[in-house]
């Protein structure tokens, strides 16, 4: 009998305690995080939902069987119940609801992505700067944050949209402008707990500039909890966008935005329930997905918050 020589697998290479290069160390760390994440079934469900959403948005043209904007015959195809031809039925303009949902996923994804891309950096920047410098910088930045925090988000967004004019782009800007303050608070709180620590003093002793310290040493420690928080907020952002759409200040008809679709369907809620319910279900599933994902991310990225 021969003994097979031990061939180091890719897994061993990633999990080694003695990485031989910068890349291996970083990949190993990422792989460990992924392994921990994978151990949480609900988080995987959440990730699955989000990945599915992205795939649907990317391949919307292939998936959707009908045109989302132009309906069918208004006399024969209005408000049809779900069937094999129309999986989720049709709406009052004789448009296929399933196709509209599929195309609407692009809008939802765009809202989510743009808000995350705009609001997160603003929040992190304001929070870490205020926390790191303290003193009057802190006072000024935090008072501004407080002003934003004092209003309910939807109301503030409403005010912005009213000023900028209705439309999906303005809705996104309004939501982004109104959603950074909690991230700034969070980033500031995290910064306060680390700015007096020895490792920050040590890097100052190496002669690093404030910008370098904030960017290279403080921000990496704040981002994980902010990312977790952003993920949890995604559900709220989708709902706010839908809410704006619902009252006619977000996406404009005939764009297939989910909130606007619910608004359009509410007149038929009793007799043609599917018109409002299908987009509602879509919002519900995606929000749930982001919540599960946030829960899983919190467990792996933010050990302090672990129950």
């Amino acid at each position, binding site marked *: 009998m021969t003994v097979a020589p031990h061939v180091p697998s890719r897994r061993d290479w990633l*999990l080694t305690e003695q990485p031989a290069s910068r890349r291996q160390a970083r990949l190993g760390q990422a792989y*460990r995080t992924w392994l921990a994440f994978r151990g949480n079934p609900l988080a995987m469900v959440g990730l699955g939902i989000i990945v599915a959403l992205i795939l649907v948005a990317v391949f919307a043209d292939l998936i959707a069987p009908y045109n989302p904007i132009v309906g069918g015959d208004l006399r024969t195809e209005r408000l049809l119940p779900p069937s094999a031809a129309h999986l989720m039925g049709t709406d009052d303009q004789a448009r296929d609801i399933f196709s509209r949902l599929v195309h609407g996923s692009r809008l939802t994804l765009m809202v989510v992505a743009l808000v995350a891309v705009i609001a997160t950096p603003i929040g992190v920047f304001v929070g870490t700067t205020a926390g790191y410098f303290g003193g009057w910088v802190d006072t000024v930045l935090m008072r501004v944050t407080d002003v934003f925090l004092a209003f309910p988000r939807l109301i503030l967004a409403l005010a912005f949209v009213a000023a900028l004019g209705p439309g999906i782009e303005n809705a996104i800007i309004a939501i982004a402008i109104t959603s950074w303050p909690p991230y700034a608070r969070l980033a500031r*709180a995290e910064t*306060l*707990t680390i700015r*007096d620590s020895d490792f920050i003093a040590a890097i100052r002793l190496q002669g690093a500039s404030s910008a370098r310290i904030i960017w290279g040493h403080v921000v990496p420690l704040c981002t994980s909890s902010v990312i977790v928080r952003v993920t949890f907020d995604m559900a709220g952002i989708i709902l706010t966008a839908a809410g704006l759409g619902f009252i006619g200040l977000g996406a404009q008809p005939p764009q297939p935005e989910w909130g606007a679709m619910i608004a359009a369907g509410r007149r038929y809620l009793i007799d043609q329930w599917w018109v409002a319910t299908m987009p509602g279900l879509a919002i519900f599933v995606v929000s749930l997905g982001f919540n599960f994902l946030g829960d899983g991310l919190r467990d792996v990225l933010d050990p302090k918050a*672990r129950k």
Partner: protein
Amino acid sequence: MALLTVDDLRVTFPTRQGPSEVVRGVSFTLGRERLGIVGESGSGKSQTGRAILGLTPPPGRATARQLVFDGIDLNRASPRDWRGLRGGRMSMVMQDPKYSLNPVMTVGRQIMEALKFHGRLSGADKRRRALDMLDAVQIRDPERVFAAYPHELSGGMGQRAMIAMMLVAEPDLLIADEPTSALDVTVQVEVLRILDRLVTDRGMGLIFISHDLRLVSSFCDRVLVMYAGRMVEELRAADLHLARHPYTRGLLNCLPDLDHDRHPLPTLERQADWAR
């Protein structure tokens, strides 16, 4: 009757290389006395202490054939029982005070929080007790330290704030994990006096974890020596210099000595079979 009985305590952490047992079958009994635990870094001293208080960090798991505190079987204690015991009847001074103190809460509030186990005390009463305790651990201006945040304290002051926090609750069992490593020797002696008084006058049981062999041999009644998760030796503290295990002997040998010049200091050659 023994205050605490520990039989075959084991603590295991799941790792990617399979479960790793960091405490491997530790057994001892503790009366109302001072028991020292010494051993090298990573030998499982802190994990032993945490396991007794049911504070093994997840995903770690602690098991024991027997774990009895003052007639209460801790293996079968419900979360409610634990809440009644921890902080009030048994508590632990953690090794890293700067990590264990809340950085954004004043020291005074944290100490007053520890007094919640003492029935209903008025705010002023709590404050007075907290200040008295800070004074007892030799803090020079208790009023200032009471109102200070942890980062405004020196290393030794943070450590004493932590001790004060654990002692105000007057526990029956105290596990002190390197409580005096950042204190100068005169203050150290005073802190040890307080602990000593609590043991002799109030009958507290004390587990004193330390790497300072001289201190342990002069302060404690008995000493356990741990190596790689196992108890390798149990001695009367006064007989520490008679230790047999090569690890204990090596440890004693590498201490610098006030009276003799030894350059370089001898270091310890660890043998693989000590860990078995």
